C-alpha cells in the first residue's frame, strides 16, 4: 500500500516497520512514530470529520493538542471517545473514525489498569523542549532531585519540528546527549508521554503518563495503562512552549488549511508532505521557515502572503533566492474548495482596508498569526497574565512563589534565547532552594538568530465575502464565528465570560487553545477597548482531557473503599452469614439455614436468645481506654449522666450529646480502676467519640490529667445471651462464680482461659441474662469455638445484627443513628433518667433549656403495635392522625412522626415498631394511622418497652 505523501526519507518514524490501521472503514498503513494524524496525511487524507453544527468538512489543522480540527473516536483496541488524531500514537490494529459530535463510551467495563504514584523533587521541569532540557540539565548537574515531564513521545519539543543546529550538528544530537545525561543522573526522573495537566498549591503538579497506548493490542495487562503522577516540587519550571495562533478569515476552516508550524512538524518529524501546492499566510517571520522547508521538500509554494506592509525584507530575500513569490501587505480573504481547499483568495491589505482579491490555486493553506505562550499551568497556579501588545498574546506576569515560566511559554521565541532562559530559570530556582549550581554547566552553541521583523497583530481579516463573518470561524470545534461574537456584543454583553457562554467558544474539547485569545482580541475590537481590559476566560484544569478511570486509579472494585472485618470474619463466611455494611465494617446480619429466608432465620435466632442461648460477634463496638487521675472528670463532662460515682468493677450505660443537646452516641462504661475506664461506643461512633474526647481534652481542658486510647481492635466482644448463658459461661470459665450474688448485673470480672486474660461483663442489650466476653483477638476463634462447644447442649445459636436489633427493640433500647437522626434529645428518647440533675454542667446541658427543647410537641420515642397484628410497618413509614373515614385528605397532610424500627416479634407473636411521634408519650393508648400503599394501617401507640418491662429476665 502506498502512502503518496510520505517523503522518501527523514522524520522520526521507523520506516522499517509498517503498521496497519483502519480509518472510516478504510485500511491504511503508517509507521511506528506516526500519530494517527500524520499517518492520515501521509495517505493524502486531510478531512477527518464534518463539523458539529454546520456539517462542514474539517481536517487536521495542527500537529498536537491545539488542533481544533481532527477529532476522532477510537473503536479498537478499546472504545474511547473524542481524542485528537494529532495526539493518538499509531499502533497496529488501531480502528478509528472521525467524530462530528458526541463520542461513544464502551458498553463493557474497561479492564485496563490505572494507577497513581507520589513523587517528590527539588525541581520539576515541565516540557522537554530546548528551554526545558536546558533547565533540567542545570538542575540535574547541581545534584538536585529533578523530574522532567513532557507530553510528546520523545524529547526535543520544537526541535523535533525543525532543522535547527546546535554545536554545529543537528540539534537532535544535542537532545539525545541531554536525554542520556539525564538518564545517567540517579536523582532524575524523566518521563515522556506525560502531560502535566494541573498545577495546584505548594508545588503540587498532576501529570498523566500514557504508558501503554502506543503499544496497541500488545499492551501488557499487568502494567497500568495510564498513571497519574502526583508530583510535589519545591520549585517548578514551566517550559510548555507556545501554540501557534491562526488568523480568522472567511472559510478558514476547510481541510488543507493548517497552522504553518504544524506543516513543519509533519514534514520534519513524520516525513509527511501536507500538500503539493501551498500558500502561506502570515503576520510574522516564523511561517517563512515552513515555506522554505516545504519548498526544499518539493512542495510548490505558490505564494507567501504577508499581512505586514513591508513584510520581512530579510525573509523576502530568502524566498526570492528560492523562487518563492512573496506578497507583502496582503491577506487571505477567503478560500474555495469543499472537501479540501482548492484556492486561497488573496487581496491587498492596507490600513485595515482590503482590496480586490485574486484566487491562487493550492491544496494547502498555511496560516500563522503569531504565537500564544502555553500559560495554562501558570494561570492555574493563580499567576496573573499580562497582555503583550507586540506579541498579541497573554504572557506570564510575575514569577510565582516556587513557579517560573521559561522559553516560548514566557514569550521567548528564539533558540539561543530559550536555552539561556531555561538555564537562567533553573539556576534561580536552585538558588532559592539553596542548592549550589554545578561549576560545569555548558550550553550548546547556537547560531545567533537574525532579528525578526516586527510581527503584526491581526485577529481577523475583514470579511469581504458577503457572509458577514458567519463563515469566519473562531472556534472550529463549536462552529462559532466572528458573526456569533458580534451578536453577543450586540446583545449587550461586555464580559468575555458572557461572550464565551453566548457563543459557546472555548467550551469544546480543546477548551479554546486556539480560539481563546482570538475571542478576547475580536471582542475587544468590537467593543473598542484594549485587549488587556477584556482579559481571558479563566484557565481551568485539566490542560488536556483526562480519562475518569485514570483519576479513579486503583480505588476501584474491592479497593474502592476499605472493608473492615473482625477476627471472626472467615468463620462468619464459612457459617453462611449474610453481611450488612455498617460504616466500613462487614457485620453478619443473620445466618440463614438451608431453605430459610431472613424472616425465618431471625425468628429462629431470636427464639434461641429468648429461650435458650445465642451468641453474637459484637467486636465492632468502639472501645476507648480512658486513663488518668481526671478520667472520671472527663466522662462526667461528656456524658449526660454521672460516671464519677461508678464503682470499680461496675458498668453503667451512658448517653453523649453534642453542644446542641442532641444525642450523638451511647454505650456502656466499665470502671476498671479509680483512674481507668473502658468506654464502649456504637460501631459507627467509635472514631467520632474518640475524636470528640480528644478535641475537648486538647482544646478546652488541657489541664485534665487524662489520656484516651482506642482499643477497638484490641478486644473482641462476644455477647452470650439468653436464659442458658450462665450455664455456658460457667462451663467455659469454671473459676468464675457466675451467680447473681457474686456476679451481679452491670458488673464485670476478669479471669483467664488457659492463661489468656479474659474479661466478662454482665451487660444486656436484649433484656435477657447475658454475659459479654472480651478477649484479645489473637484468641478470638479459639474462644468462640469453646463457647460454641459449651453451648451445644443448649442449642447455642449464633445470631446477627438483625436479631440483635429485634431483641433490643423489644426492650425499647434505641439505636443511635436509626432511632435518632441528630434532632433527638435524651428526653425525647425517654431517657431523662440518664440526664444528671446533680452535675452543674455537661456538654449539651444548656441546650436542653432552649424554647424548642421545652416544646411538649417534640417527637418522642414510643412503641407502635399494628392493630391487625399482621402488618410489618416499613421502617421510615410516616404517621398521621387517626382518620375516622379511613381516607387520606389531600396534601399537605400533617405528619406526627415516623417509624424508626420495625420487626416481627417471636416473643410478642406480632409485629411491632419503634417510632418518633409528636408528643408521643401523651398519646400512649391512642390509635394513629400509618399510610401504606394507599391504605391506612391503624396502629396503637404504646410505651417503648414491650418485652419484660419489669426487667425480670436480666438475672435469668
Amino acid at each position, binding site marked *: 500500500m502506498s502512502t503518496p505523501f510520505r517523503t522518501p526519507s527523514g522524520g522520526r518514524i521507523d520506516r522499517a516497520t509498517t503498521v496497519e490501521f483502519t480509518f472510516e472503514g478504510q485500511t491504511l498503513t503508517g509507521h511506528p512514530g506516526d500519530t494517527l494524524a500524520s499517518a492520515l496525511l501521509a495517505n493524502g487524507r486531510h478531512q477527518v470529520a464534518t463539523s458539529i453544527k454546520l456539517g462542514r468538512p474539517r481536517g487536521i489543522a495542527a500537529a498536537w493538542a491545539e488542533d481544533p480540527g481532527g477529532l476522532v473516536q477510537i473503536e479498537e483496541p478499546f472504545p474511547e471517545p473524542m481524542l485528537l488524531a494529532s495526539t493518538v500514537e499509531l499502533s497496529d490494529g488501531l480502528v478509528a473514525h472521525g467524530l462530528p459530535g458526541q463520542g461513544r463510551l464502551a458498553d463493557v467495563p474497561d479492564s485496563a489498569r490505572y494507577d497513581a504514584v507520589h513523587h517528590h523533587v527539588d525541581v520539576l521541569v515541565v516540557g522537554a523542549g530546548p528551554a526545558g532540557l536546558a533547565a533540567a540539565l542545570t538542575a540535574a548537574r547541581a545534584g538536585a532531585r529533578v523530574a522532567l515531564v513532557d507530553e510528546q513521545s520523545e524529547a526535543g519539543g520544537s526541535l523535533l519540528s525543525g532543522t535547527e543546529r546546535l554545536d554545529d550538528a543537528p540539534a537532535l544530537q544535542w537532545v539525545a546527549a541531554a536525554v542520556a545525561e539525564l538518564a545517567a543522573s540517579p536523582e532524575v526522573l524523566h518521563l515522556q508521554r506525560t502531560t502535566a495537566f494541573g498545577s495546584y*498549591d*505548594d508545588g*503540587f503538579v498532576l501529570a498523566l503518563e500514557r504508558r501503554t497506548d502506543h503499544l496497541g493490542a500488545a499492551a501488557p495487562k499487568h502494567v497500568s495503562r495510564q498513571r497519574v503522577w502526583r508530583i510535589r516540587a519545591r520549585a517548578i519550571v514551566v517550559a510548555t512552549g507556545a501554540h501557534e495562533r491562526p488568523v480568522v478569515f472567511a472559510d478558514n476552516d476547510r481541510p488543507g488549511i493548517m497552522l504553518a508550524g504544524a506543516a513543519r512538524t509533519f514534514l520534519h518529524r513524520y516525513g509527511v508532505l501536507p500538500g503539493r501546492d501551498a500558500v502561506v499566510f502570515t503576520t510574522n517571520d516564523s511561517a517563512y521557515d515552513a515555506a522554505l522547508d516545504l519548498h526544499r521538500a518539493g512542495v510548490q509554494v505558490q505564494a507567501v502572503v504577508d499581512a505586514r506592509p513591508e513584510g520581512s525584507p530579510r525573509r523576502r530575500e530568502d524566498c526570492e533566492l528560492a523562487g518563492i513569490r512573496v506578497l507583502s501587505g496582503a491577506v487571505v480573504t477567503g478560500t474555495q474548495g469543499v472537501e479540501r481547499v482548492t484556492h486561497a483568495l488573496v487581496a491587498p491589505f492596507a490600513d485595515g482596508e482590503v482590496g480586490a482579491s485574486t484566487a491562487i490555486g493550492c491544496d494547502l493553506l498555511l496560516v500563522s498569526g503569531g504565537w500564544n505562550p502555553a500559560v495554562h499551568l501558570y494561570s492555574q497556579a493563580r499567576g496573573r497574565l499580562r497582555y503583550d501588545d507586540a506579541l498579541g498574546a497573554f504572557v506570564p506576569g510575575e514569577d510565582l512563589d516556587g513557579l517560573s515560566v521559561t522559553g516560548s511559554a514566557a514569550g521567548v521565541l528564539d533558540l539561543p534565547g530559550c536555552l539561556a532562559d531555561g538555564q537562567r530559570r533553573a539556576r534561580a530556582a536552585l538558588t532559592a532552594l539553596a542548592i549550589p549550581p554545578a561549576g560545569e554547566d555548558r550550553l550548546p552553541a547556537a547560531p545567533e538568530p537574525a532579528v525578526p521583523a516586527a510581527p503584526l497583530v491581526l485577529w481577523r481579516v475583514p470579511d469581504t465575502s458577503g457572509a458577514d463573518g458567519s463563515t469566519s470561524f473562531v472556534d472550529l470545534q463549536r462552529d462559532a464565528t466572528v458573526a456569533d461574537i458580534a451578536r453577543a456584543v450586540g446583545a449587550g454583553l461586555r464580559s468575555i465570560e458572557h461572550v464565551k457562554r453566548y457563543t459557546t467558544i472555548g467550551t469544546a474539547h480543546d477548551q479554546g487553545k486556539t480560539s481563546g485569545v482570538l475571542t478576547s482580541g475580536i471582542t475587544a475590537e468590537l467593543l473598542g477597548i484594549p485587549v488587556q481590559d477584556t482579559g481571558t476566560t479563566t484557565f481551568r484544569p485539566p490542560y488536556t482531557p483526562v480519562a475518569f478511570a485514570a483519576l479513579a486509579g486503583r480505588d476501584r472494585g474491592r479497593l474502592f473503599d476499605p472493608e473492615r472485618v473482625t477476627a471472626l470474619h472467615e468463620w462468619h463466611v464459612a457459617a453462611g452469614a449474610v453481611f450488612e455494611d455498617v460504616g466500613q465494617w462487614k457485620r453478619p446480619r443473620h445466618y440463614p439455614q438451608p431453605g430459610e429466608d431472613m424472616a425465618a432465620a431471625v425468628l429462629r435466632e431470636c427464639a434461641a436468645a429468648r429461650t435458650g442461648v445465642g451468641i453474637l460477634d459484637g467486636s465492632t463496638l468502639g472501645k476507648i481506654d480512658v486513663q488518668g487521675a481526671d478520667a472520671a472528670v472527663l466522662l462526667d463532662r461528656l456524658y449526660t449522666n454521672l460516671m464519677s460515682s461508678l464503682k470499680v468493677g461496675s458498668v453503667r450505660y451512658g448517653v453523649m450529646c453534642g453542644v*446542641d443537646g442532641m444525642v450523638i452516641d451511647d454505650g456502656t462504661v466499665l470502671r476498671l480502676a479509680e483512674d481507668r475506664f473502658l468506654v464502649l461506643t456504637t460501631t459507627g461512633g467509635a472514631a467520632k467519640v474518640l475524636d470528640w474526647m480528644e478535641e475537648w481534652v486538647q*482544646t*478546652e481542658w*488541657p489541664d485534665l490529667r487524662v489520656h484516651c486510647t482506642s482499643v477497638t481492635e484490641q478486644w473482641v466482644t462476644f455477647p452470650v445471651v439468653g436464659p442458658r448463658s450462665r450455664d455456658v459461661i460457667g462451663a467455659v470459665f469454671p473459676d468464675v462464680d457466675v451467680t447473681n450474688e457474686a456476679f451481679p448485673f452491670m458488673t464485670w470480672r476478669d479471669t483467664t482461659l488457659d492463661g489468656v486474660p479474659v474479661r466478662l461483663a454482665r451487660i444486656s442489650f436484649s433484656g435477657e441474662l447475658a454475659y459479654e466476653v472480651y478477649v484479645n483477638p489473637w484468641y478470638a476463634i479459639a474462644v468462640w469455638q469453646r463457647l460454641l462447644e459449651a453451648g451445644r447442649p443448649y442449642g447455642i445459636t449464633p445470631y446477627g445484627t438483625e436479631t440483635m436489633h429485634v431483641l433490643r427493640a423489644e426492650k425499647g433500647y434505641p439505636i443511635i443513628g436509626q432511632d435518632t437522626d441528630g434532632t433527638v434529645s435524651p428526653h425525647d428518647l425517654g431517657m431523662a433518667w440518664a440526664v444528671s440533675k446533680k452535675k452543674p*454542667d455537661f456538654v449539651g446541658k444548656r*441546650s436542653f*433549656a432552649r424554647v424548642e427543647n421545652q416544646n411538649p410537641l417534640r417527637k418522642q420515642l414510643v412503641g407502635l403495635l399494628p392493630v391487625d397484628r399482621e402488618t410489618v410497618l416499613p421502617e421510615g413509614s410516616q404517621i398521621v392522625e387517626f382518620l375516622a373515614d379511613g381516607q387520606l385528605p389531600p396534601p399537605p397532610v400533617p405528619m406526627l412522626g415516623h417509624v424508626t424500627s420495625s420487626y416481627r416479634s417471636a416473643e410478642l407473636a406480632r409485629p411491632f415498631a419503634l417510632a418518633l411521634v409528636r408528643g408521643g408519650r401523651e398519646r400512649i393508648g391512642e390509635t394513629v394511622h400509618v399510610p401504606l400503599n394507599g391504605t391506612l394501617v391503624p396502629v396503637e401507640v404504646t410505651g417503648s418497652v414491650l418485652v419484660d418491662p419489669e426487667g425480670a429476665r436480666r438475672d435469668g
Partner: protein
Amino acid sequence: MQLIACPWCGPREEVEFSYGGQAHVPYPDSPAELSDEEWAHYVFFRDNTKGRFAERWNHNAGCRRWFNAIRDTTTYRFESVYRLDDPKPVTP
C-alpha cells in the same frame, strides 16, 4: 492539594488533616448563666472571614494533635501554624 505544616510532624498533605473551624472560641465558663441568644452564638455562630482567619486543624491521620493556623481564606495559603498553648499571632 495543600501541604499543611503540623507543628509536630511537619508538612503533610491536606488529606491527613481535619478542619475544626474558627479558633479561639472558648467554651463558656458557666453556660447556665447565658441567655438563649448568647448560648446560640456559642453553639452555631462562627466568623466567616474573607481573608486572614484563625482556625483549628487536627492532624488526625498523623499525631492526632489539634493546632491552630492563620490561613487566608481567599488564597488558602497558610501564613502560620501554632500550638494551642501559643498565643494567637498578631497579624497586620
